[in-house]
Each structure stands twice: as C-alpha cells, then as structure tokens.
C-alpha cells in the first residue's frame, strides 16, 4: 500500500512537471519569434548533468517501488489435460465449473496447506480472479470456444500484503488440484486393516472372501468397460486380471475353502452358529412365505383381468435413428406378470438359502470334529494374501489407466515478475522523466514577456 502510494506520487510529480512545462512553453511561445524559438531549442542543454542525474535517481527509486508493487501480482495458468475437458466436462462427466478454482473450499485448503496467518477466506478470495484464457463469443457457432485453460490472477490487498504472492498462487492451484482429484477423479485405496479371522466363523470368512473378490471383479469389469484394450506396464488388461480373480474365486474360495469347511463341519462355536443359522432360516422362511403369498396374489389378479383390457395398444414412435415404428405399450396385466415372475424368483432364492443353511447345519451336526482346523487356517491365510495381491494388482492397473487417461489431470504454470517487463517499464519511465525535465529546463528560457 505504502509503495503503491509512493509510486503514484512519483508518477504524479513527474507528470505535473511535464504538463506545467509544456503549458509554460505553449503560453510563452508567443513572446518569442520563430528564430528565437528555434534558437532556444537548439541551444538547450540536452545532456545537462543534473537532468541525467535526477532522471537516474528517480528511475532507481521508481524501479524499487515498482518492483515491490509488481511482486504483489502473480498469475497462474491452470490447464485441464484430460480428454473430457474439451467438452467442458469434469473427468467424471459432470459439468466443469471454473469458479471452483477459487471456491471457498479451495481457498480454505490453501490457507491450511500454507499455514497462512492473519488472513480469512473472504480476504484472500477478494484478491483472486479467474477467467478463461481464450474467451469465445455467442454470436454464431464459429465463435463458440470451450476453454481448457484458465488464468488465476492474484493481486495482494492491504489485508494480504504480508503474504508471499507467488506462494499464495502456488497454494491455491495445488489446493485446487487436490480438491479436483478428490472430487472428480477415480479414487483407489487398499483396505489396510486385516480382519481378525480368529473372531470370525469359518463360513463368514468364506463370505468375506467372496465379497472381497466380487468387489475386485466389479471394479475390474467397470474399468474394462471404460477401456477394454488398455494394457498395463506389465502387459495385463483389466479382463485378464479379472479372469485370474474369477478363476481364483471359483477354485480356491468356493471349491477348496468352502468344501473343506463344509466337508469337515469346521466351526468355532458349534451351538451358537447352528442357532444363528436356524434363526436366519426362520427369517428367510418368513420372507419366503410373504413372497409366495404375493406370487399367488399376482396370479389371482391376472386371472381376474378382463380379456378386453389385455388388448395390445400400439403407439407410433421413432427410434434413435429417427425412423418410425409402432411401439407396444405395457398394460396392467404385463406389470402383474412381471411381478409374479419376480416373486416366484424370490421364493426360489429363499428356498435355496434355507436349503444351504440346513445343509451347513446338518454337516456341522454330523461331523463335529475339528481335525482340519489348522489346514483351514493356513488356507485362509494364503487366500487372504492372494486376495490382497489381486486387489493391489487391480488398483495398480487402475492407477496406471487413470494416470494415462488423466494425462497429469491438471497442469499449472505460474508467472511472476518478468525482469524484461520491469526493464521495459523502467526505460519508458526514464524517458518520461527525461522529457519532463528537459521540457522544464527549456521552459525557463522562454521569456515571461515579449
């Protein structure tokens, strides 16, 4: 603020000298004839030592103030490098919003990241401006432009003058990058905690592994859908990893581990587990009865449906290619038949679950010796390690793909003080001071009266 005032004061002083000298020359020129006027300009001391010295000193002082003033302004260019940016979208397909670069959350993060003292989000935000580097028009289609580069400009105010401008803009842009990654990009993380298998029932451990492997498979299938041909650094594709995981799930978890546990009726607390399964069966049976009743109800409703009301209604419509066709609308009986089918499936599923549970209960009750416990525990540990290995492999592949797709996500270039720019300003200022002082010097040679 102080430097700003002094800088302006210097410019104002030089400006006043320039204007007043020019005015004096203008008004007094009528007091001399043409020859005298030429003589005054010819004999003026253009290289007067005082003029040059004052010019030099003023330029240095101005240069110092100018430097401090320029240090207050920094700008950065934020470039969006991922493919969706050209459609004004975030990497997850949602609409891109450049105002988020300086939104409250980003500014707050920047303040926290930089441990910036004595500044509030509002104060800092007031110093920031964001705008697209290239702005299109709305006149016609040829003027449309989707910018993938945005400039963020910071100009320190009185409240933020104590902060290093370059650091502030670095913090803002890196906080935005973090914010963007968290909000819009793929996130991968491994579950670092190994569950305590000693506290879990063996069949629950099987379910845990099934759930884990299914989650890995879902993730890999999802990634494969995005880009089936992506090959990782070690030559795998999402599908090839998924194939390995699927096979492992089928053989090691479903066949080996599950069979071993069931065959030998291995259980930690026999009575408690049997009770739990029995209780589960009761609940499932209750569901089964409900589903069966619903199924019957749907069938009765279909029987009661009037034949006249089941006529097909055709509606003219057009497909995506714009071609007309006659669409068949659904009527009430269609909905009822779909519901009946669903309820029937639920009943089947409930019955299967009850049967499975009964099988487990029978096995546990019939065998009852835990001779294979140690081999099951070993198998569980080895399966756990393999599952974690697959998880890691899947995540690494996902990260590689994400990195490839995101192409560094967001790139930031920061532009601070340009020495050449400062020099240019100084040269212009020095020329201005010199001209003003020379004019002042010349103006004194013009007589007040003719």
């Amino acid at each position, binding site marked *: 603020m102080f430097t700003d005032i002094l800088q302006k004061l210097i410019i104002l002083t030089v400006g006043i000298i320039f204007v007043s000298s020019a005015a004096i020359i203008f008004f007094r020129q009528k007091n001399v004839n043409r020859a005298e006027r030429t003589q005054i300009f010819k004999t003026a001391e253009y290289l*007067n*030592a005082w003029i*040059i*010295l004052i010019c*030099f*000193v003023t330029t*240095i002082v101005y240069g110092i103030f100018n430097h401090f003033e320029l240090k207050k302004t920094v700008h950065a260019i934020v470039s969006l490098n991922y493919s969706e940016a050209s459609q004004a979208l975030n990497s997850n397909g949602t609409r891109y919003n450049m105002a988020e670069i300086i939104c409250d959350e980003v500014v707050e993060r920047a303040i926290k*990241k*930089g*441990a910036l*003292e004595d500044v509030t989000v509002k104060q800092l935000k007031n110093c920031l401006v964001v705008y697209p580097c290239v702005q299109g028009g709305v006149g016609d289609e040829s003027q449309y432009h989707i910018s993938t580069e945005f400039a963020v400009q910071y100009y320190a105010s009185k409240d933020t003058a104590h902060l*290093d401008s370059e*650091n502030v803009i*670095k*913090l803002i842009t*890196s906080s935005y*990058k*973090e914010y963007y*990654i968290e909000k819009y*990009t793929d*996130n*991968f*993380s*491994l579950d*670092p905690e190994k569950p305590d298998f000693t506290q879990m029932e063996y069949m629950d451990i099987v379910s845990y592994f099934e759930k884990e492997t299914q989650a890995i498979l879902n993730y890999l299938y999802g990634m494969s859908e995005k880009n089936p041909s992506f090959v990782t650094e070690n030559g795998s594709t999402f599908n090839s990893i998924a194939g390995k995981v699927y096979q492992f799930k089928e053989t090691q978890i479903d066949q080996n581990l599950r069979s071993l546990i069931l065959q030998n009726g291995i259980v930690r607390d026999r009575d408690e587990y049997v009770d739990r399964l029995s209780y589960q069966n009761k609940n499932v049976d209750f569901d089964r009865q409900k589903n069966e009743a619903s199924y019957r109800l749907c069938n009765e409703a279909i029987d009661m449906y009037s034949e006249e009301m089941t006529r097909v209604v055709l509606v003219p419509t057009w497909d995506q290619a714009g071609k007309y066709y006659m669409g068949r609308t659904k009527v009430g009986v269609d909905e009822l038949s779909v519901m009946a089918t669903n309820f029937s499936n639920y009943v089947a599923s409930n019955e299967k679950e009850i049967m499975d549970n009964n099988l487990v209960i029978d096995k546990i009750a019939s065998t009852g010796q835990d001779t294979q416990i140690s081999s099951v525990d070993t198998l569980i540990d080895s399966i756990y390690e393999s599952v974690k290995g697959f998880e*890691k492999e899947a995540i*690494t592949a996902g*990260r*590689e793909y994400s*990195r490839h797709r*995101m192409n*560094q*996500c*967001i790139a*930031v270039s920061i532009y601070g003080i340009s*020495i*050449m720019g400062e020099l240019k300003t100084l040269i212009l200022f020095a020329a201005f001071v010199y001209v003003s002082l020379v004019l002042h010097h010349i103006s004194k040679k013009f007589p007040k009266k003719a």
Partner: protein
Amino acid sequence: MDKKRNFREIEKYPDKIKELFDEVIRDESLDMWADTFDIEIIDGEKIEVIYHGTESIKSFKKECKKILASCIYSVMGVGTKFKISQKRGAIVLSAETRKNIKALKFFVIGMVFVCIATAVIVVMCNYIGNRNFRETFYSVSSIKVDSSIRVIQLSDLHGSSYGKNNTKLLKRVEALEPDIIICTGDMVDSVKEETDYAVNLAKGLSGIAPTYYVYGNNEAEDIYDFPLNEKELDNKFGFNKDNRDETALLKLKDPYEEKLEGAGIKVLKNEKDTIKVKTMTVDVYGVLTSNPSCFWSYSENAFGSYVNENKDNFKIMAVHEPFIFEEFNPDFWGDLMVCGHTHGGVTRVPVLGPLFTVEGGLFPERSGDFVYGRYDASGRPLIVSSGLENSNVFRINNQPELVVIDINKF
C-alpha cells in the same frame, strides 16, 4: 641591436620580458594570460613565444601580441623578430568544453555515488531480508500415492538461528504439518562445537514429524576427520577395488549420530528407513558417501537394496550434494530426490541465474550444474534447496528457504 651581446645577458632576456609583460597585463586586467607562455631565444637574436595556455592561441594573439611586442622591443630593442607558436601536443579547450568537462565530472561522480549507494542499500536490504526465511512450495506427482504427502526439507543451516533456539523455524515447520522432515546436511559448521544446537533442533523437529538427517560435508569431515572420497576411504581402511567393504565406514564411532538419535531423529548413512504415511509406505534413503568418486564403490549394495526392494513403496532419496545426479544417470534414483549444498549459487543474478558455486565456478547453471530449484534426474523430480544459512552478506536475491514438497497422485 648589438649582435655581440654576451651570452649571460641574453640568458636573462626571457625573464625580463615576462616580468615586464606581467606588469603590463596587471595594469590592463589581463591576468588570465600570465604564465601561459615560455620564451625562447633563437640564435641570440630571434624570439619564439611558446604558448601553452588553455585558451585558444587565436585569443592569445589577439589580446597579447601587441603587449608582447612592446615588452620584447623594450628589452631587446625595437625591430627584434619574434613569433608566437603553440606548444606541441598541448590540448586547447574552449570555455564551453571546459564547462562540459566539469559537468561530466560531476555527472560521473554523481553516478558512481548513486551506484554505490544503491549497491549498499541492496546489500543491506538483502541482509535484513535474509534474517527471515521464505517457504518454497513444490508439487510432485506419483502413481504410488493415494492422497497427499507433505515433505519438509531443511538444509545448510550452518548454525544459523531463526528466533531463540530456532523457535520461529520450528513454529513454521509445525504449522505446515509435514508428514516427513528431511535435513539434508550442513546443519552445523562444527559438529564438536555445535552439538547442543543440533540436538535442540533435532528434538524440536522430531516432536513434529518423523525426521531424517543426512550428513553434509561439514558434519562428515568433522566426524571422520578426512574427506569422504574414494582415495581417502581406501587409504583409511586399506582397501582396493577388490576388497572394499561398504560397511567399514559405517562401523566407525559416531557420537554425533548417537546424540541426534537420542533426540528422536534418524540419521541415514547409506541406508534406508521405511515408514507408513497414512495408507502409503515410504522408503527414505540417505546418502553418506555423496562424492561421485565413492558413491558406487561405497554404497552400491545399500543403494541397490533401496531401489530394488519393495518397488511399490514411494521412494525418497536424500543427499547433501547434487553431484551424483549430475555425474550418473541410472534408470531410477527414487520417486523424489532432495539435496542442498550449493546455497543456490549465493548471489542470484536476474536473468543469468546463480552466480557462483565452489565446484561449478561462475554461473554454474549455464554449464549444466544443479544449483537451485527443481530439476529432472532420470525422469523424476530432484529438488535442490538453497538452504537456510543467513549470515553471508553476499547472499543477494537469494533468501534462505524452507522447502515444502507436496506429493500428489497426479
């Protein structure tokens, strides 16, 4: 004129003429012409007036010829022949030129004064500015991290203090919430005299985050009493290229290390340490034998195990001097390398960059040396800190810095 006047008499004529001339010009207010000429007598009868004044000879003739003639005639007789000539090589300046010269002198002196004053102000401002440190933020990306990791690097303190017991420095480090702190050497000038200083700092840092310390040349030479290069190491242990033992140096007694580790920080001497940061695993490797001559011969195995084991871990390499990165180009140094030593070239000249390093001479960055900032080493970021030392008056445009590195996944 009597041609047979004796020699003694003739010899006195010039003085007599001058005396007479001086009297006449005093009466006629022409003092400025006094002592502006010499008189020579040629063949005992002719007079040559040699003018050597600063005014033009034309003006001299115009003003003084008649007076001179009358003086000569009165001394040597009427009709004595005389001529006025200018002394050879004499520079004759006009009044205007002399005025300009005077102005030029004034201007040059003024300029010199202004330049000296500016230089003094710049040096003083820098010196005052260097009492405080700035924070330099770097952003690094790696596929190996899930969320942000913050590393703070302190380097080349050389016993400098920011607040009593470095409280100001420690307060800022704490406020910046680092996950890992790395000291890249030369934290003290003398290990023996500044142990307490280092231990206090170590205690402060270790209370904030896991802290690692790598020796700089100052600490290493003070502890081991010899420079750590291949020749000296071979001499010390009696090794040659066939029987070198990397661990020999590490077995030497190091009370400084004990004190630092007692203060809660880990000194890395050609070794790595693995820590968990959030959900990520980070390997930090510290180089002791950072001289390129002994880097491979005295740390190849340790470096190999750091590079090749647990490749999924994020790997940070800390070394005091950046020379190995200039000299060698292996496939992989680490995911992030940090070093110091150069003091950022001491003075940083706008546009031209760092001015001087002991090893690189003048403008070392121009010859490809790693002096200050962020570089690329085998495709990964290398950060060279300008350090925190603040007592050098020649440290201009190069404020001491605390390096803050944020590692993100993209």
